[in-house]
């Protein structure tokens, strides 16, 4: 019942803002309603921890037929942390809006924050792929509607289309997975999926997270740089991460070849994104790479047979990520606060991500270890670098914002710490010492170099003096071109045109003057086929 209370509070908040604002517009009142609703929901979500696990049936399709399907929600240790994370993010984002007074922070954006949070919660809590697919579709439609309202939407047309297209494709793959899982496990209810179809779910999640292929279109619009924009970019990842966390551990056995290909793609995506993350000039531009890199970690965990371990990387993506991205303006005096976000993904013993190493590093030492540890270290370095670069002062803020600004960061930090303590049984663990210490060693070295460079990227003249500079630059440029996947789209476009030409030719034959005669020929062919099938 508590879960309904959370949804109720969020939806009631949305409705209240809508009604009160239409009667007598007041931004202050709308904001108070929004922050109250989100905070109440956050508190309730903590209480929910006492009732884990539990199941709620929402509706049953096709009652009385042999095709009954139950749509429902289930709350367990795999998705409860995500619920807490997204609610914390909403509270933090709403607090952010007190520091930014412009036309993009209005009652409608707060309504959107509450409603999108509620929708994402449905996806996170979905008890089966069908429920999740429905909520994905709803989220995508809401998101594409808000993207179309961006001030620069007309210039972003093709990027919006590809972003939406990839979402649609991921939903399609999820429904394929749902169809297949039922085929082999008709009796199963709840989330557990058939192992033979899980690879589709994984690819669906990978697509949604932007990993296969790297596909987070860089949508550059002022609204997306602010709180709600960040929320909308990070939050949809949560349900995809839950999907990964729910994959059966043994699914890899059924799809060895495909899983191998996916693993290679993931490793490349992770390393490439980490390099891009650490080299971007600001956090806004680096955001997509953060999502891809940590999502790759989550997928890697699933591929290594530890889907549950993906949870910590997902939480890091959401909580540590929003902590950094909401640290705007980056005020120098309080930069220790976002630095605490490192606790979410540094992976040292007894921190939140300590249990994530077992998913990231395969049981046997191999090349993957090196790539993953290096990638992790690059992510940490980038994170530290972006915080250390902060150069704003507190004087630019309004009086009340001097309280709310750090408060939003505190909300996220306290959630991190709380999850680190009571997130799930066994959350406090030493983890893989080789992984954490190896990564730490690289980070220390990188941080020292960055410190010497004053947290800026080294100047071009300095880099040029490095050994094999030309070769490395050539390699990086080549990799960037490959990873941009522009070649793939061009190839697909050419293939599409080629197919279109063939289609046109067939059209002309079938719809031209001789079409009826062709139809007669086809009739004869159909008859022959049927006779050949029918003859003994």
């Amino acid at each position, binding site marked *: 019942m508590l879960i309904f209370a959370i949804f109720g509070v969020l939806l009631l908040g949305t409705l209240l803002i809508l009604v009160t604002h239409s009667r007598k517009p007041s931004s202050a009142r709308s904001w108070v309603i929004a922050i109250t609703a989100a905070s109440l929901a956050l508190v309730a979500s903590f209480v929910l921890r006492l009732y884990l696990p539990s199941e709620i049936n929402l509706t049953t399709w096709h009652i009385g037929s042999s095709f009954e399907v139950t749509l429902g929600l289930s709350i367990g240790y795999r998705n409860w942390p995500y619920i807490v994370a997204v609610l914390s993010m909403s509270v933090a984002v709403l607090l952010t809006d007190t520091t930014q007074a412009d036309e993009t922070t209005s009652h409608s954006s707060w309504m959107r924050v509450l409603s999108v949070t509620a929708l994402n919660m449905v996806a996170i809590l979905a008890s089966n792929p069908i429920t999740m697919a429905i909520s994905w579709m709803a989220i995508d439609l809401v998101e594409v509607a808000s993207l*179309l309202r961006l001030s620069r939407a007309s210039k972003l047309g093709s990027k919006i289309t590809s972003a939406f297209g990839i979402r649609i494709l991921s939903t399609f793959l999820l429904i394929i997975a749902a*169809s297949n899982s039922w085929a082999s496990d008709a009796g199963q209810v709840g989330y557990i999926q058939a192992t033979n179809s899980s690879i589709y779910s994984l690819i669906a999640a990978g697509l949604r997270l932007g990993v296969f292929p790297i596909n987070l279109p860089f949508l550059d619009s002022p609204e997306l740089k602010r709180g709600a924009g960040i929320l909308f970019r990070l939050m949809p990842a949560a349900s995809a991460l839950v999907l990964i966390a729910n994959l059966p551990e043994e699914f890899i056995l059924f799809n060895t070849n495909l899983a191998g290909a996916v693993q290679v793609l993931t490793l490349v995506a992770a390393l490439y994104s980490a390099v891009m993350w650490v080299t971007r000039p600001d956090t806004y531009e680096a955001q997509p790479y953060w999502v891809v890199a940590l999502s790759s970690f989550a997928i890697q965990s699933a591929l290594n047979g530890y889907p549950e371990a993906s949870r910590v990387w997902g939480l890091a993506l959401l909580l540590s990520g929003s902590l950094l991205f909401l640290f705007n303006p980056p005020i120098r005096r309080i930069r220790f606060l976002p630095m605490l976000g490192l606790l979410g993904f540094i992976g040292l013993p007894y921190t939140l991500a300590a249990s994530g190493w077992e998913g990231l590093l395969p049981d046997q030492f191999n090349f993957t270890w090196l790539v993953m540890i290096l990638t992790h270290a690059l992510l940490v370095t980038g994170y530290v670098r972006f915080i250390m670069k902060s150069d704003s002062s507190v004087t630019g803020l309004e009086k009340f914002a001097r309280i709310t600004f750090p408060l939003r960061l505190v909300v996220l930090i306290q959630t991190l710490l709380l999850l680190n303590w009571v997130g799930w049984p066994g959350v406090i663990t030493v983890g893989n010492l080789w992984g954490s210490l190896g990564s730490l060693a690289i980070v220390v070295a990188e941080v020292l170099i960055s410190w010497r460079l004053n947290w800026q990227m080294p100047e071009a003249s300095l880099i040029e003096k490095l050994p094999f500079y030309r070769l490395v630059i050539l390699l990086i440029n080549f990799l960037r071109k490959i990873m941009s996947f522009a070649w793939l789209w061009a190839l697909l476009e050419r293939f599409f045109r080629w197919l279109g030409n063939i289609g046109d030719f067939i059209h002309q034959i079938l719809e031209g003057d001789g*079409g009826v005669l062709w139809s007669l020929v086809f009739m004869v062919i159909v008859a022959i086929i049927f006779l050949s*099938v029918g003859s003994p």
Partner: protein
Amino acid sequence: MSNTVVIWIGLPIALSFLLVSLQKYQKITAVLATIIPLILAGLAVLFSNDLVLSIAGRQFFLEDSLVLFGRTIQITAGQLGMVSVLYLVCFAWNAFSRLFIVSQWFNSLSLLITALWVSVQFINPFIYSAVVIELIALTSVPLLSPRGTPAKNGIIRFLSMQTLALPLILVSGWMVTGIETSPSAQALVLRGAILVLIGFILWVGIFPLHSWLPMLAEESHPWTISFLLVLMQVGLALFFLKFLNQYGWLRNLPELDTFLKWIGALCILSAGVIAAFQSNLNRMLGYFFLAETGYLAFSMAFRGSGGLEVLTMTLFPRILAHWALAVSLASMQRITRSETLTFEVLKGIIRRYPFASVLLLASILNLIGMPLFSLYPTKHIVWKLISTDNLPLSLLSAVGVLGMLTMFLRLFSTMINPGNQNHQTGSEESNVEEIGLIIMVVVILMVIILPGLFPNVLSRPVQELLISFENLT
């Protein structure tokens, strides 16, 4: 009057002729053509348990058959469910017909065509219905080809194909007389099956004999063509079930199910792949019908594993989906004042007419079978049945759906990207959409989304629809 055949076939035919004579008064004919099918559908529901009606202690009995030219036409209580579905379709299309510029004959002929489709289901011997289907095709001509424009290729192709199907069906009926008792029936069974199947392939327009579907959809008003195609799809599906129900040799033919499955996959695949390259929305309407025929074929092929249950469950959602698409296309056509909806016309339209655009996109997503929309709960079952059956069929169907999604994304991209001219003149601001249109869009969106979450709302009323096919249920 106290005869089911007179009430649900004779009377509407007579009334349709009356409406023809009243067609100068367009408003009156529209109102009558809306009310009459609604009443007929309501009565059909009322009598669907028993042909007796008790009012204030008096009982009204209906006879269930009528002899005409020595042959019997019979509509029993159990069959009235089908009648009500057909008249509801007629009601749904007539209720909105005044909003769009359709043929002046639409109201009267739609009622006549519906009555003829009803008669198709109940003429005995049932293969004579093939001639009635030809009559329907001929009666549709004034609707499909309004005056003032020359007759185009689509309608001529349509007539040709419908005519070709007629002898195949009639001869099949003669050929298989007494086949059940024939000692060397195998060859005859195969021949009979070929004739029946090719007849149906020509009627519904299955790839590669589908060319008339997109051609006709391109030439005709979307409101009219969707009405005719919906009735045809429902009517022919029921008629094919009648064949299966009556002809044991056809029903028990082992190759039939395999054939139907491949037909289904081919329809979904061809519709999706061809639609992916189209730049004319009117033509796409034809491809959507082709794809839906594929799903119907699958439902019939899987009748041993509950396929017919799926067919009934999907009946109303499918009709609603086509109806919503027709509303959106006809609205688009009206607001853009263009005869055909090419991508060129639709460039950047989402900024000018957001509500109408959203309705169009949602209707297409619905027909593709995406989650959240009304067709998903039943399409999901068909996909599951296919995936249990065999991999190539699943792959072909999946490619078909992907093709449809590609088409959707191309359309979406066109609608959000303003054309160069528009962009320069800064006509991106929203044009004012009529409040009536906005309300209609919101209501239709609810109508196609709510059953996507609660499909029982639409599937439960038709649960017993196929009860009269005693050999199939």
